[in-house]
């Protein structure tokens, strides 16, 4: 794993992965969309609004997973000074923010017909909105100073401190009285959702994960190439 600290080795190792990741994501998302939009029957209480779940829930899971990735990469960057760790964290942030925005938007569009409102300040929604602000703050810190070392350190500290929000999001529906429904998939006693809804959900989650991984790798590769360009143009540039 440490070998991938070498940017050239990372570029060589990740090149063959990309076609598979994007092909897998395209196939899985297409399958998930077909099942979710046309094959799955309307749910007894939610009717056809249940179809929003197949893009809302995977987006939310990716949003939280991406932040966990940033926090872990930040620890690695601070403790081990791994050359690619802060690059990996920085390049995951815009993607994490995107999936957070998707979860918030699709959740609002589900909430209007179900709850009668696009938004409510309950614990789950509020902590998820905070996640979006954490992403925004993280990206802003990276751009706050021209000194990349200081920017990386400040951003890493924010990412690690902000990780406390992840269990708050996860357990908010248990700790507080929320409008958002409680845990219905990963719970003791097994999922409370019928298999006909679970399969498209997991297919979409896998597709979204492959898409995130592919885009993340492309972003890291772009960052490495830009650094190589800067080094060629200004040989004194190094970090």
């Amino acid at each position, binding site marked *: 794993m440490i070998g991938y600290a070498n940017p050239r080795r990372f570029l060589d190792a990740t090149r063959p992965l990309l076609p598979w990741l994007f092909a897998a994501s395209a196939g899985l998302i297409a399958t998930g969309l077909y099942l979710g939009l046309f094959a799955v029957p*309307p749910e007894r209480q939610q009717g056809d609004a249940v179809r929003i779940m197949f893009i*809302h829930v995977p987006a939310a899971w990716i949003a939280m997973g991406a932040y966990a990735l940033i926090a872990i990469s930040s620890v690695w960057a601070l403790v081990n000074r791994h050359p690619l760790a802060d690059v990996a964290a920085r390049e995951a942030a815009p993607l994490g923010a995107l999936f957070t925005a998707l979860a918030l938007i699709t959740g609002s569009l589900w909430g209007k017909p179900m709850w009668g409102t696009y938004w409510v300040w309950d614990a789950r929604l509020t902590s998820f909105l905070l996640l979006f602000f954490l992403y925004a703050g993280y990206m802003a810190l990276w751009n706050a100073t021209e000194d990349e070392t200081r920017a990386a350190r400040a951003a890493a500290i924010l990412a690690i401190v902000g990780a406390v929000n992840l269990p708050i999001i996860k357990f908010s529906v248990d700790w507080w009285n929320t409008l958002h429904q409680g845990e219905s998939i990963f719970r003791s006693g097994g999922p409370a959702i019928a298999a006909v809804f679970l399969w498209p959900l997991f297919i979409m989650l896998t597709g979204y994960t492959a898409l995130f991984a592919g*885009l993340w790798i492309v972003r890291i590769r772009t960052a490495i190439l830009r650094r190589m360009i800067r080094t060629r143009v200004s040989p004194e540039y190094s970090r």
Partner: protein
Amino acid sequence: MMIQSLAMGRYGSYVWSAYGVSALLLVATIALTWRAYVRAVAELRRLERDDEASSP
């Protein structure tokens, strides 16, 4: 039948809006990410060619 299934009861506008916004943002992200990568690759290749041309 087709119009009924697209209308999705009274939830059609919400469902299609959710899928439409998701598709728009994801496709835009994929396009922008790929464009930045392709530009970086092209720029590096240009610099490498210039280096080879200028070396004795």
